[in-house]
């Protein structure tokens, strides 16, 4: 596949993307000056966590969104509007439920005026390549997840694109199904049975990126930037247990935790009691569970992240939010590709329920500026009540509506658990009252 005369197929230059924030005036940067290229014959993985703008970048490349500034060109042609040489595979499959498999595959060419018999020929060929023979008249509802995603692939292939873009195509599938689909796709690709010139995939699964791609672009979060580029030369077929494979996975983990750390520290240094700290979507039970898991053998207080993810069946989007929250609360710390309990974290594990609640409350109050801010407001007011909207608006000065919402929700959760305050969902207000 690796043609020596590797031509640049796609080039993305200085792309910025912003969205209006809650307050309207200020704009949140989603992609910050992103440049990348895609050459003929390679598979490139965009690896990043939620909030890194990797899906946004993919949609800009496919011409589904327009960047605020910067350019995208495919084979020298600028992309303006849905690009002709690009076909997309969706995380959610995005099949039309009212069309059967054959109609779903044929809809693209037919809508674009390809004659009926040529469409049929192309569709049957794509269905054959992707292993869907016999399912032509089935409706998506009748298919398993794996088969649905095969329809997603066939539907993209039949468009005969130059570039196949895939938005976390395997993340809605169970582990075994995902692995089968990955290897099948790699086989088809390596045997050159499809006219696709190159593949760009978005993923948050580090092992998937290492398994499939020739090049990995790691995106940092908030705003999305290309933080590093890793060339993956491990020969195919790749074995997950192979030491070079493990080493590459470990190094990528280390790369990503390091940045998680700096990203967290920066805002707190910036302003004294800044509210800019956004909290991920985590529950107190999973926090406690994670601490217990790390404390128990075989980790005994220090766990290798890839291992931990593997044993818990987690991907980085499950693991990192928990780890980061523990870090914010000073109960655990990242160290290269490891996560390590702090002395406080070790004590937490040995406590009973009431003590845990107390400690969690104290740590939230001490380390999350928003928590102390809410408490101060409640103390100041004679009624000891305050509407949630007020804090949401304050948060929206620093982050998007979604993030503000999520942060507030997580904090309410932590605050309730730590008995810092009560929250009345119907009235949307904080108070000290609890039912007698």
């Amino acid at each position, binding site marked *: 596949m690796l043609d020596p005369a590797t031509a640049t197929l796609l080039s993305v230059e200085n792309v910025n993307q912003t969205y209006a924030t809650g307050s309207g005036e200020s704009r949140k940067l989603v992609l910050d000056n992103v440049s990348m290229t895609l050459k003929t014959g390679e598979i490139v993985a965009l690896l990043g966590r939620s909030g890194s703008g990797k899906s946004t970048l993919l949609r800009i490349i496919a011409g*589904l*969104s327009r960047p605020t500034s910067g350019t995208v060109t495919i084979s020298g042609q600028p992309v303006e509007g849905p690009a002709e040489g690009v*076909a997309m595979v*969706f*995380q959610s499959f995005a099949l039309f439920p*009212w069309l059967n498999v054959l109609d779903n595959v044929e809809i693209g060419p037919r*809508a674009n005026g390809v004659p009926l018999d040529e469409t049929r020929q192309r569709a049957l060929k794509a269905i054959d390549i992707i292993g869907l023979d016999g399912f032509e008249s089935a409706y*998506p*509802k009748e298919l398993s997840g794996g088969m649905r995603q095969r329809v997603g692939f066939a539907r993209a292939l039949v468009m005969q694109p130059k570039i196949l873009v895939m938005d976390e195509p395997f993340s809605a599938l169970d582990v075994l199904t995902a692995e089968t689909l990955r290897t099948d796709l790699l086989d088809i690709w390596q045997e050159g049975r499809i006219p696709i010139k190159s593949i760009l995939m978005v993923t948050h699964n580090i092992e998937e990126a290492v398994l499939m791609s020739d090049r990995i672009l790691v995106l940092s979060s908030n705003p999305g930037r290309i933080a590093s580029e890793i060339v993956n030369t491990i020969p195919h077929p790749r074995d997950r247990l192979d030491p070079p494979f493990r080493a590459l996975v470990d190094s990528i983990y280390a790369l990503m935790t390091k940045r998680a750390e700096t990203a967290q520290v920066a805002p707190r240094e910036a302003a004294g009691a800044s509210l800019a700290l956004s909290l991920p979507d985590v529950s107190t039970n999973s926090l406690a569970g994670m601490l217990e898991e790390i404390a128990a053998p075989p980790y005994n207080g220090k766990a290798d992240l890839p291992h931990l993810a593997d044993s818990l069946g987690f991907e980085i989007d499950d693991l990192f939010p928990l780890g980061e929250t523990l870090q914010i609360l000073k109960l655990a710390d990242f160290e290269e590709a490891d996560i390590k309990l702090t002395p406080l974290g070790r004590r937490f594990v040995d406590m009973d329920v009431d003590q845990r609640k107390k400690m969690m409350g104290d740590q939230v109050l001490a380390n999350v500026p928003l928590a102390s801010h809410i408490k101060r407001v409640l103390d100041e007011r004679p009624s000891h009540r305050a509407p949630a909207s007020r804090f949401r608006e304050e948060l929206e000065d620093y982050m998007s509506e979604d993030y503000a919402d999520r942060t507030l929700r997580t904090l309410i959760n932590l605050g309730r658990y730590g008995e810092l305050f009560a929250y009345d969902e119907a009235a949307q207000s904080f108070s000290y009252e609890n039912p007698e």
Partner: protein
Amino acid sequence: MGAGVRSSVMASGVTGFPMVDSIASAGRRVLPNQWDLIAFAAIMAVLTAIAQSYHGISAPLPRPTEDVISLGYGSLPYYALRTALRMFAALFFSLVFTFTYATLAAKSRRWEMVLIPILDILQSVPILGFLSFTVTFFLGLFPGNTLGAELAAIFAIFTSQAWNMAFSFYQSLRTVPPDLEEVARGFRFSGWQKFWQLEAPFAMPGLIWNTMMSMSGGWFFVVASEAITVGDTTITLPGVGSYIAKANNEGNWSAIGAAILTMAIVILLYDQLLFRPIVAWADKFRVELSAGQETSTSWVLNILQRTHWVRMAFQPLFAALRAFSLLPIRLPRLAPASASEDTQPSRVLDAVWILAVLAVAIYAGWLTVQFIASEVSLAEVMHVFVLTFYTLVRVFVLIMLASLVWVPISIWVGLRPRLAEGLQPIAQFLAAFPVNLLFGATVSVILYFNLNPNIWLSFLIIFGTQWYIVFNVIGGAAAFPNDLKEAAANFRIKGWRWWVKVMLPGVAPYYLTGAITASGGSWNASIVAEYVKWKDHSVIAQGVGSYIAEATDKGDFPKIVLGVAMMSLFVTLFNRLFWRQLYAYAERRLRL
């Protein structure tokens, strides 16, 4: 059935277990805002304009002769056919309206600002109040021709169907899944292709369910609109409704019985041959991809789908439709593509638009007030206000009474799956049955026992509409999760506590769906139920319904406009301030 939150209706599990996924407008907005006022003014002004045009066109129909309708049983199948055809004609216009009005509202932000509040108010306007305007209008269009009368009847049914269909379609268009939207854009579908390949199919289940419910409700209106007197114009269209009107005039019991039987057969056929097959077929358009969902079945559909030759025969038709829907027609864009979420809409244009709409609305409101004031004094307005209050009390008390009786019984039935399976379709059937067929006969009883019409006529109001409560609550109780039932039994929760803490909250959202529909239908029914004729007697209950009905009989248009406006106002406020609040609460707190 007409006035009220009818729109709201009720996507419901067709096999019988209502899922009630949306009270269409409940979530959006609760208190009336300026747009509602504008819409209100505009609608009333249009009605006024139609009524005024009548004075210019006065072209009387040839005096209706008594022998237009024959009470012979032999003619009943023909009448039933005519009645059914009227329904389908109205359905056709409702679909045309839905595809244009709702699409425009969904695609253009500025039109949406105007069209949606109008729709919202329209569904609170009592349809039967409309009748007098539309009859005069259509008769004026085709003087001396029955086509005018036919169109008037069709229009009355149309107004009972169109609003909630349009609402359902609009809401579906606004909630097309973003990933499918992206596929459509990725494949560079034209607007035409996208509409037929994505938007219309996606809206199909909701639209079909609402259409079918509308059809059910429509029988009431087709019966009411076939024989009507406005001033000195009397219309008698061949149909079951006219048949029963004549039977009532003559007090002919056996003819009444025959008409009721005919109607029952027609509705049964409609249900089995049309409703169920289409709803079952529409299941394939549901987007949720889980297989375990309850699906509807229909023996007719099974037969059609399993016969090879029927499918073969339809193959070319489907292929042609498909090719048609895939034509690369590029319709002009109504609004800038939603592609870039950042495009700032022009404030200046918005302001101009809003000012224009406001000007029209103010002028319309002024026109209406002037028209009413031409004949009606302030004292009369106060009088109508009081009358409307009577009707409000009537509707409210009767819904509460019906709830007291039916909710426990329905829960009892719903908890017994075999029983529920059998009884729920019957309740659904009863809800579709046009009970106004029975009004005359019921009134004869009131006359016979010399009962107080103010009290006893009231019951007619919920005659037909109580079944909405019944079948929704049965559905809710049947869908009540088994583990919660077991938990209640395990913790020995019994007696009133079981009702208050377990069962009633569990069925509340379903109950409210039923009650809101019933309430809307009852307002409409009041126009026919508060003023009933039997032989040469008129039995009247004090209320805005009888006020409108009497004014219609006399052809007194300012009074009709006043009555309809007042009733619409009450219905709108009653819905917004009472039902929707309750529904929003139930959705938030009690949805299982």
